[in-house]
């Protein structure tokens, strides 16, 4: 793939987005905007209790309510449960507990919001009104909510097959080597961290429309999904037993996902199943309160970590014990998040030679927990960067120098970590130095003194990190328990008159693929970007792909497109050679034109395209007509973007308010296709990271299991005045194993930022004697920390 010819619409250009016109004029087609002829509306009656037996459901009165088409409960549900896509084995080799997960509860409800009945009516209001007439007799049982306590003996059990609420007890690394290193350590730093539960809150609530064609027996599901083919496979094969050839899944415009729209949800299965029963389309749209209760939540880990160092601060070994909340059921990818997406990152950017990680996955009577922007890598990065920071404070070694002296050297790549992953390339020194310069680290003390004059405490914090994404090499993840492949598909259909449609199995829900993938093809085939359409989201149109998450779309999906382009060019060269009466070996392709080396013979791509479809002057006995190629690209490894984030805060000690006054990010994301779009991804990720650090937390009442943060009134979403301007820098080391050299950018912003923010807060509060603070560092929490430190000092 060429490096970027400097074209205004090719690789490296900040091309304005092709998709913007429809979004800016209100012409976007999101799932709730779609209406099918004869459509009915679904409303789901949900459990008000965190844990209860369902003794009786009386739907007689509700069924007689105006406009009701039908009401279905768990007793009516005769299909399969929602599957889990990743199987983890415990230390003793036993497979994880895998309880059933039916889309409608049969005998028990296991979290507030669990699905109890499906009401289908002519209007949404009628469905909702009818639901109020359903009489459910619950026998409440004591829920278990606390992650810290759930695996202790004597607690309420969410599932009989998961003793002490433990789904699995897994480990990775070399315990013996780690123990030996700790025995010889000059200094050991310990830390206890809570990575709090978050709620992704994409602005578009989930929605699903199930439709059934009684002429053909075909089902169609419109859904707010990041991966329509995955839904088709899971729902078709495992849940409703509909052959994929009779099931179409369409993910139209989707208003943000951040991971929460990866998973196969109950509502998707319910509207599809029920559409087959009533033989009319059924639309379900979540409202925000419902989303709070039922979208997969994120994070929710408790970590204890210990770092062994020699007398010079060189890391000798790291050991980590983690408890990870699964919620009441296993969501689609939940088991891999705290294990293969977390613990395998425990080396970070450091050359720590011995690492051992243990992870217990725990059931509680709460909403499911699964991947959310970063999915495991924010948890590990936060842990590492808080631990290293603490080590610096304890040993007196400078916070920047302790990191620098432990970086993996520039010449050590490919670098095999002690936790399975092998990094292909990276240069942590350059991103660190650039970030220090961009953030004016050196000038901080002056700014701190000036802030003091205004009565404010100013602090600066740093995070040096990497992550593993570009998900994923299929055989590798398969050996680790994944039940799916993780390749991607790209299909390039050249039309007779020279325009091109690019079909991709990825899904753009904000990432701008309609523009960036068109840039790739514009550059690769030398055709104007206006002549390229990128198609995604409809399983009837696109070969099987795995969707968008895990920062994979460019690294894996883009690589598939490059491979498909290679095939196009290979075939085109043969056609061009024929047209120019030359041998294929002598044909070159550059800037959209085929030439014969050493001559002035040339033929443009458009002519080749037309010829392929009107094959009169054509090597017809050797070559089929047409110009359309598909590639399935299975990556050879994960990719490893990362870098350095530096945050500066000012704290008002009287109120505890933390203001982020500067945020600097320097990230190495490999090849950049569209700098404007890449920066936008960093901005958005950093905002979510600041949200985790200072504002957001999902909280359940430990007694009742009620979600205390059930709306934007109590769950604090970052607003424009919570986030500063973000200074984004860039340094490139190419990925060595994919044709683009791309590493991925979707999640790094949310991964590197939380520890930079908290390290800054603690830096500001250090003079007051505050040594630790939990996320989110709300004004209340900061104020309390200050008061506690004041009292301790007295």
């Amino acid at each position, binding site marked *: 793939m060429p490096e970027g010819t400097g074209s205004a619409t090719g690789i490296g250009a900040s091309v304005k987005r092709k998709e913007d016109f429809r979004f800016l004029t209100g012409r976007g087609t999101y799932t709730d905007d779609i209406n099918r002829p004869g459509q009915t509306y679904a409303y789901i009656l949900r459990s008000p209790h965190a844990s209860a037996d369902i003794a009786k459901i009386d739907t007689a009165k509700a069924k007689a309510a105006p406009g009701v088409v039908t009401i279905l409960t768990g007793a009516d549900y005769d299909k399969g449960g929602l599957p889990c896509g990743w199987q983890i084995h415990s230390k003793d080799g036993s497979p994880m507990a895998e309880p059933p997960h039916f889309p409608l509860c049969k005998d028990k409800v296991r979290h507030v919001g669990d699905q109890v009945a499906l009401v289908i009516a002519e209007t949404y209001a009628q469905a909702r009104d009818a639901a109020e007439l359903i009489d459910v007799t619950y026998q409440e049982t004591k829920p278990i909510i606390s992650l810290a306590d759930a695996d202790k003996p004597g607690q309420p059990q969410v599932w009989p097959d998961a003793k002490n609420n433990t789904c699995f007890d897994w480990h990775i690394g070399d315990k013996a080597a780690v123990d030996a290193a700790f025995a010889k350590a000059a200094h050991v730093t310990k830390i206890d961290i809570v990575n709090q539960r978050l709620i992704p809150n994409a602005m578009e609530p989930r929605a699903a429309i199930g439709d059934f064609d009684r002429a053909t027996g075909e089902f169609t599901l419109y859904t707010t999904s990041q991966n329509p083919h995955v839904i088709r496979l899971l729902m078709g094969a495992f849940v409703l037993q509909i052959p994929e050839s009779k099931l179409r899944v369409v993910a139209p415009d989707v208003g943000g996902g951040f991971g929460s729209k990866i998973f196969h949800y109950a509502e998707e299965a319910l509207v599809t199943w029920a559409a087959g029963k009533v033989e009319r389309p059924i639309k379900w749209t979540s409202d925000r*309160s419902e989303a709070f209760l039922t979208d997969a939540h994120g994070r929710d880990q408790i970590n204890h970590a210990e770092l062994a160092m020699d007398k010079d601060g060189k890391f000798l070994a790291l050991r980590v014990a983690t408890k990870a909340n699964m919620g009441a059921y296993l969501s689609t990818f939940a088991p891999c998040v705290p294990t293969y997406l977390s613990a395998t990152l425990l080396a970070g950017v450091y050359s720590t030679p011995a690492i051992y990680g243990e992870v217990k996955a725990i059931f509680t009577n709460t909403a499911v927990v699964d991947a959310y922007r970063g999915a495991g890598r924010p948890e590990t990065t936060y842990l590492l960067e808080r631990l290293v920071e603490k080590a610096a404070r304890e040993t007196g070694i400078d916070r920047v120098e302790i990191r620098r002296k432990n970086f993996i050297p520039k010449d050590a790549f490919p670098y095999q970590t002690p936790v399975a992953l092998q990094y292909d390339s990276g240069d942590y020194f350059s991103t660190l130095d650039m970030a220090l310069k961009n953030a004016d680290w050196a000038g901080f003390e002056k700014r701190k003194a000036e802030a003091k004059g205004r009565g404010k405490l100013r602090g600066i914090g740093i995070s040096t990190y990497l992550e593993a994404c570009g998900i994923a090499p299929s055989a590798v993840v398969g050996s680790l328990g994944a039940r799916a492949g993780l390749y991607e598909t790209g299909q390039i259909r050249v039309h007779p008159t020279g325009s091109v449609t690019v079909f991709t199995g990825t899904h753009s829900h904000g990432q701008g693929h309609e523009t960036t993938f068109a840039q790739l093809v514009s550059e690769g085939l030398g055709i104007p970007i206006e002549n390229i359409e990128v198609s995604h989201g409809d399983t009837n149109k696109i070969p099987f792909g795995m969707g968008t998450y895990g920062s994979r779309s460019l690294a894996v999906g883009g690589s598939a497109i490059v491979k498909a382009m290679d095939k196009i060019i290979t075939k085109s060269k043969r056609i061009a050679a024929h047209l120019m009466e030359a041998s294929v070996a002598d044909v070159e392709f550059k800037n959209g034109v085929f030439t014969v080396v050493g001559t002035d013979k040339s033929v443009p791509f458009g002519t080749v395209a037309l010829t392929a479809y009107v094959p009169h002057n054509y090597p017809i006995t050797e070559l089929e007509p047409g110009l359309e190629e598909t590639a399935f690209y299975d990556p050879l490894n994960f990719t490893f973007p990362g870098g350095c984030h530096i945050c500066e805060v000012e704290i008002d000690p009287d109120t*505890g308010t933390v203001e982020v006054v500067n945020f600097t990010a320097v990230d190495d994301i490999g090849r950049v296709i569209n700098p404007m779009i890449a920066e936008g991804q960093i901005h958005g990720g950093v905002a979510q990271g600041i949200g985790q650090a200072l504002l957001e937390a999902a909280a359940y009442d430990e007694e009742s299991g009620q979600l205390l943060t059930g709306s934007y009134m109590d769950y604090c979403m970052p607003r424009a005045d919570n986030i500063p301007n973000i200074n984004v820098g860039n340094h490139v080391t190419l990925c060595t194993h994919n044709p683009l050299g791309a590493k991925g950018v979707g999640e790094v912003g949310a991964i590197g930022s939380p520890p930079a923010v908290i390290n800054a807060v603690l830096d500001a509060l250090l003079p007051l004697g505050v040594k630790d603070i939990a996320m989110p560092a709300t004004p209340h929490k900061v104020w309390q920390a200050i008061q506690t430190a004041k009292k301790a000092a007295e």
Partner: protein
Amino acid sequence: MHNFAFHRPTSVADAAKAIGAASDGKFVAGGQTLLPTLRQRLAQPSDMIDLSAIAELKGIKVEGDGITIGAGTTHSEVANSADVQKTIPALAHLASLIGDHQVRQRGTIGGSIANNDPAADYPAAALGLGATVKTNKREIKADDFFKGMFETALEEGEIIVSLHFPKPEKAGYEKFRQPASRFALVGVFVAKTKSGVRVAVTGAGPGVFRSKELEAALGGNFSADAAKGVKISANGLNGDLHGSPEYRASLVSTLAGRAAAGAK
């Protein structure tokens, strides 16, 4: 929400008639608080009587010893009014802090006062300035108006027509926002009036209240330091996810000091 009959009277008299005729009627002005309540199905009125088409309820007039604001005046209108900015700048400042840009285009002073949300801003101004609430039946002094959480002295069906705020020597308002809802976690309105210093606190307790200790401290020395030195008791103050009673108590003195320091 549940359905209801909708009425849009064009006079106070017609509004009073409509509510009298309803089995369980509710007034709606801007609706910025009532509609979310109804959407959560926390209330089920039989009738909604929209006050937003009643001309008698609109208008801002400098008169008497201060300024009179029609109950149907929006927060945006109060915030941007040259008359309010000149007469009682703290009141315009307070109005500019309510809700957000869109909420301020619809929410009204009458609605806010009648609802008496324990975290609303206007009750602090009304109590802090010693305002008079004029209804379609009588006049009620602020000190007698606010009775507790969501409770006021209004009788059933009584309609607020306007509020009169006497002009203070100087006044200030400081609001500390609950980070998620952006309502006042604590809001303090401080005014130096003819009859002495008044300090009204919203958000901290079950309803808006006057702080005797802060009034005494600021009465002696109207400065930030005087207020900061006052230790407010956490007893009876609200505690929730977003702040303990002790935190709110601390904020009360801090904000009172800042309001005094910035008073205009």
